[in-house]
């Protein structure tokens, strides 16, 4: 699947789909959408990127290990349920605050943070499955170099991971 067309389109498509996934996530409160479907869209974006540039490129692009992303989402979802202990309402009750940002009232709620948690869980868990499956089928030859993620500042070379144990 290493064609020129795909390699040219993939970064743009990935960026667009990620943006759209966030849109679907935030839309989900009152209309069809939500964390689960948004997460799935984000995963398919990453999968397209992986098909074009290989698994290691995706792993570099998302920086954190997919399971760590899933874990953070799970933690966020649990905490949004537990916040209601301080408000004196049962577990998982929706709580709202309306801070003013630059003169615009922004409704924020535990419902939304729970949904963001779901989004992260789906992104993490399914990306890790997708990457594992892609890694298996990937040809051993060198895949094309992806375009630099951040053109301005080249990232410092990472220190080699210490040997664990």
């Amino acid at each position: 699947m290493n064609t020129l067309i795909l390699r040219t389109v993939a970064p743009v498509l990935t960026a667009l789909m990620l943006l759209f996934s966030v849109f679907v996530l935030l839309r989900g409160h009152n209309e069809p959408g939500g964390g689960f479907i948004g997460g799935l869209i984000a995963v398919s974006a990453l999968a397209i990127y992986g098909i074009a540039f290989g698994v290691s490129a995706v792993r570099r692009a998302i920086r954190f290990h997919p399971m760590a992303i899933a874990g953070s989402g799970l933690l966020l979802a649990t905490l949004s349920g537990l916040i209601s202990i301080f408000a004196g309402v049962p577990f998982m009750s929706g709580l709202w605050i309306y801070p003013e940002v630059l003169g615009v009232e922004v409704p924020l709620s535990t419902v939304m943070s729970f949904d963001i948690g779901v989004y992260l869980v789906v992104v993490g868990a399914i990306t890790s499955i997708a990457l594992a499956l892609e890694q298996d089928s990937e040809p051993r030859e060198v895949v094309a170099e992806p375009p630099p993620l951040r053109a301005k500042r080249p990232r410092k070379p990472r220190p080699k991971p210490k040997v664990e144990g």
Partner: protein
Amino acid sequence: MAAPSTDISAALVLVSPHLADWLVVLPVALMIGFGAVLMMVRKSVRLHGTIAITGLALLVFLDAALLVRVSTYGPVTMVMGRWLPPFGIAFTADLFGSLMAFVSAIVALAAGVFALRDIDAGGRRYGFFPFLMLLMAGVSGAFLTGDIFNLYVWFEVLLISSFGLLILGSEPEQIDGALKYAVLNLIGTTLFLIAIGYLYAIFGTLNMADIAGKASRLRETAPLVTLTALFILAFAMKAAAFPVNFWLPASYHTPRITVSALFGGLLTKVGIYALIRVTVMLFPVEREELSLVVAISAALTMVIGALGALAQNDLRRLVGYVVIAGIGNMMAGVAIGTPAAVSGSILYALHSVVTMTALYLVAGEAARLGGAWSLSGLGGLYRRAPWFSAASLALFLAAAGLPPLSGLWPKVALLKASLDIGAWWLAAAILISAFIVTLALSRVFLLAYWRPRPEPAPELVIARDWRIAWPLGCLTALSILFGLFPETVLDLSQRAATGLAEPSAYIRSVFPGGAAP
């Protein structure tokens, strides 16, 4: 945000919950939270043990607090998201659920400490401790939920984590065992889901308290016996009762021994818990109709489990068959169905959670000391480790049901209950099964402990390790204590069984203002 014009406050919980009510939800939330943290720090393997043991210790503490609360004030309920039951998902802890949750938490803590030694860095990097946390979230959720679809979800949570634990290491044998385990358990939970579908079609609700209240009204018209039969089949599959038990001996001996211990102690008991909850509390009349089938299955499970134990050479597989024999005993209590019999089943479940986990751990330690899993290869353990041998002997006697250990009391209760209703053949099956299990386990002691080593191996110096001594010692002590001073646990399990047979307190805790229309 326009104010809604319809008044929805009638569907909301308006009183703020007592802080102690949170104890129903916190065990599950705690385990999920710790599992999430462990997933986030997956690279720093060294932290895993500390974090996980802290989490499990907290879980024991929370479950103990919940048990105290429930046994003093009666069942506790919390509804998710302020929606009144039956609209919101309710978590309801009664005495039965909180007892089981407490004992499983103790066992998980013991197994977690044992894992510090048993699971190496590779297993931890693969995610043993996160999976353990999620498994405990599933187990606690199953024991504490008050909603039958939610029960299904927790079943799946613990099933998914158990898959992860089962293939830890990815040996070919594990993959073989895991395939059979996964396929059959998946079919079992699908059957459960089918039953839930029919239940929803009949009742229009999934809240257990609501179902218990409505069952008497619908009994004349609805096919409740069929429904109960489906539930019994699904849960018997989860609990490994004959004739749907063959996945257990095919898979439980393949993973690491800590994982086997957790599975043998907890997973089948979750199936028994669900069986008791649904048949005794929700559909008692239908259970009566099906009691002969359950009784026959129970008797066969006991005897076949015991005979299987007698025929095994591998220590782990032998323990697996002992687990099955125990399942038969618990099913017998369900088949008889009187409060005394159900309390015997509950007692047996509590005893079995502790003893079966401990037996698997004993098998692991025996293999470490003796260098083999098979009875033909083991020998001379008594000379090597007298204290360990004493603890093993105590656990063997407990599992066989001999006095003065924990296995005696549930067996006595079940025997008495079955003789009371005149089911002499069930009583005979219990006795025969106990006799054969005694034979099998005493032969283990003879061959692996008393007998001199088959070929004199070089005397390895094997250091004593607190990570093995403490869990084993504590579980054995628990079993001995329960055998010598059974009054508290007997009393608690009797009250739990009464609460199941007469669930008015349970229903009142979910619907304080009277049952839903």
